[in-house]
């Protein structure tokens, strides 16, 4: 029997299939296409999952189970509309935080900025200068002011991303190293910007579905 695990994010959904032999297959689809799938997921998590289903799992719990192999460290998952982190010390849970509601300084805002200014994310160059984006809305105002004064949108958006990275560093209580999970792992500008402040190791965007699989194994095997 093939097992299916789903991390249904706001924009993209990550799926893990595990066949009878334990072989794993990862895939990403647009969340808007989820309704076209005829799959009963063994476990699901994420903003777009049905939280009332019995097999729904809390996202921070899924993240924690996805990084069980990391005995020590801070693991940050930065997605389209939320940010969450956990810290482990000697294999035990130590600390956590989760901002589930404000998306003004997360992936969705950056996606909108890139579309608004017609900028390709691959063309962004990390910039040590940063906008203050404690509130992303105020950060947007800075971008608009700078672009209207002649600064290239690519540079302005890069400064915004550095601000988001600085936020993430502070949100995780300024650790020495961050293990980064989620869609931002594929945003080179963000990863390099985060490295201005802290050592970074990327884990990819499938940590939560791996966590769901680990939860399944713990419960049923």
């Amino acid at each position, binding site marked *: 029997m093939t097992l299916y695990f789903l991390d249904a994010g706001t924009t993209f959904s990550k799926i893990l299939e595990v066949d009878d032999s334990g072989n794993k297959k990862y895939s990403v689809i647009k969340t808007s296409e989820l309704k076209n799938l005829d799959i009963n997921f063994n476990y699901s998590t994420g903003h777009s999952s049905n939280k009332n289903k019995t097999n729904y799992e809390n996202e921070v719990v899924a993240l*924690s189970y996805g990084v069980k192999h990391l005995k020590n460290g801070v693991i940050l998952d930065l997605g389209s509309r939320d940010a969450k982190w956990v810290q482990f010390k000697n294999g035990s849970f130590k600390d956590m935080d989760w901002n589930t509601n404000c998306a003004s300084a997360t992936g969705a805002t950056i996606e909108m900025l890139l579309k608004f200014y017609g900028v390709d994310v691959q063309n962004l160059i990390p910039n040590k200068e940063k906008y203050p984006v404690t509130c992303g809305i105020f950060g947007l105002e800075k971008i608009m002011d700078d672009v209207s004064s002649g600064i290239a949108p690519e540079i302005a958006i890069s400064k915004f991303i550095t601000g988001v990275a600085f936020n993430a560093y502070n949100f995780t209580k300024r650790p020495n190293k961050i293990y980064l999970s989620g869609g931002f792992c594929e945003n080179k500008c963000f990863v390099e910007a985060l490295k201005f402040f802290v050592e970074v190791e990327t884990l990819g965007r499938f940590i939560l579905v791996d966590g769901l699989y680990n939860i399944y194994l713990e419960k049923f095997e």
Partner: protein
Amino acid sequence: MKDIIAFWGYPHPSLIKKTKEEYKNAIWLDLDVDFNHPQASILPVNYCSIIKNIFNNAIFYKERIIKILAPVGRDKCDSAIFAVEILSDMGFNIETSAFEEKTYKKNNVYISESNLPLKKKVELITDNIISEKDYSNLEKSIPVAGFWGVPPNDLSILELFPNETHIFGWMRCVEQMAPFDIELEKFVNPNIKTVFFAQTFCAKNQLAKYLADKYNGLYIDIDGVSNNSTKAKIEAFLRLR
């Protein structure tokens, strides 16, 4: 018709006793509780929800309130002192009290350490300020979690906790009839995972954050109604810690 004795916090037992004797048929009303009455708009928008409840409830029941029993000592908070001034100016009959001694301290934590649902525990402790029932028959639970703090404005967060959650902080002090005992208020079980709660804008946030850091607990503050973010954090903390 005036038929209500209103109160907030934990009025001194001697004042409760005297008032009960004087107004035998009165209805007792805890002004701290959110009954969803209209906003009185007397206090600043950004202010403690519990103090706002006091004003909302007092004004809603103004024609029925005989008097308000108003703790103003270290067992409540500075906001209560100012609330007394404002409500008196608005025409309410108010009698203040303050715990000044520890002689009322008892070693009973029957409700705080029982196996009742956490929300029920909180309701029993606050109801028992007036009803003064004996709960020594409650079954004691082996703790798996702790909840430190005051009764939250949004009681729904209490439903996230297992029944084997023990109560610490001000509510435990109230059950032991020592609502101003700072040493007792700081007491927690260091061997269990504890959520340290304070109402946003309350001075107790200082102690909640400090104790959460000290005992590797989870510090939360909530203004009004809890959001999904806070509930998710509590849920994850109880699962992972």
